């Protein structure tokens, strides 16, 4: 395994930290936005209460609406925190049997804000259903996230990226493509595979493009390891 130039850490560890840092930063920003809205909604309720004390007749529906919207924001923030928590717990075991379908949904959710900032949306395609694969849960999330991140950064405005997950004889597969147009997701798999070299090697995964569909294809083989220890 190669080591990063400046700090002596294995380069894969640095990549993993960067991925987790990027996800944490994005999620914390999203939570802060929710808190900002909750802060203003609670403040507005207080403003209305003060107006009532000074004799102004309130509209009960107005208070009810604000209370309902506060609950909605709390629910949203909780959903976001739950996603980050699931990503954090994906490091609990180095190798485990996971549902790739659920893992793809998780990464799509975590990438939601980044996609919105790039004017892109990411949606699931294909049949729902469990796709069990024995692998490194966090590293697979990292690989999917990295592919999505590159695709999002290169997709044209107002395009929708699609992600599909499917079983294969050797494990499972993730396909990333565009909903609109026949062009590829904008990712050069050769360059991208070079960037993800260490990660793909540890996963025993391959990255390629499907010339017919223009999709970026990540093939993940079942891990033969039974070691439930820490991350490599």
């Amino acid at each position: 395994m190669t080591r990063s130039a400046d700090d002596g850490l294995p380069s894969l560890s640095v990549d993993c930290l960067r991925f987790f840092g990027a996800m944490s930063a994005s999620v914390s920003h999203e939570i802060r936005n929710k808190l900002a809205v909750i802060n203003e909604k609670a403040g507005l309720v207080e403003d209305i209460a003060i107006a009532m004390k000074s004799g102004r007749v309130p509209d009960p529906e107005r208070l009810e609406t604000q209370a309902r919207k506060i609950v909605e924001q709390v629910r949203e923030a909780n959903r976001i925190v739950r996603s980050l928590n699931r990503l954090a717990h994906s490091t609990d075991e180095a190798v485990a049997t996971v549902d790739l379908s659920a893992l793809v949904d998780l990464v799509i959710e975590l990438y939601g804000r980044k996609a919105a900032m790039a004017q892109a949306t990411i949606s699931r395609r294909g049949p729902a259903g469990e796709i069990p694969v024995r692998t490194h849960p966090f590293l697979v999330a990292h690989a999917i996230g990295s592919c999505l991140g590159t695709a999002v950064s290169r997709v044209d405005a107002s395009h929708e990226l699609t992600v599909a997950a499917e079983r294969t004889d050797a494990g499972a597969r993730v396909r990333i493509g565009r909903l609109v147009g026949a062009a590829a997701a904008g990712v050069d798999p050769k360059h991208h595979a070079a960037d993800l070299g260490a990660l793909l090697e540890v996963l025993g995964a391959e990255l390629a493009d499907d010339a017919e569909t223009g999709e970026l294809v990540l093939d993940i083989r079942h891990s033969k390891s039974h070691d439930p220890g820490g991350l490599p």
Partner: protein
Amino acid sequence: MKVLLVDDEQELVVTLAERLGFRGVDAKWATTGHEAVVLARQESFDVAVLDVKMPRVSGIQLKKDLERIRPDMKFVFVTGHGSEEDFRIGSAEAARYLVKPLDIDVLVETLKQVVAP
């Protein structure tokens, strides 16, 4: 005082506009740079409160667009990041820079200071 609030989080700007209304500030809101430019062409504002990071047009770019339409308009930047980089950019580009969640009293005081002659 007339204020233009711009943030891609609609619930935030709608509520802020209402709260500023309670405090005698006439606030209008937009959730995109395009909407903000349309509003600025229709009427003048003393100050615009802009989110630094928005889809399509950033707050920094939007400030430049609005300045071309209303050269006298003042600006306050708001961010949910609070990073060193945002602070540096926000402080350099606008009269004031605030971090979410906002304190309404601080916002009102900031607006008064920014528009004071």
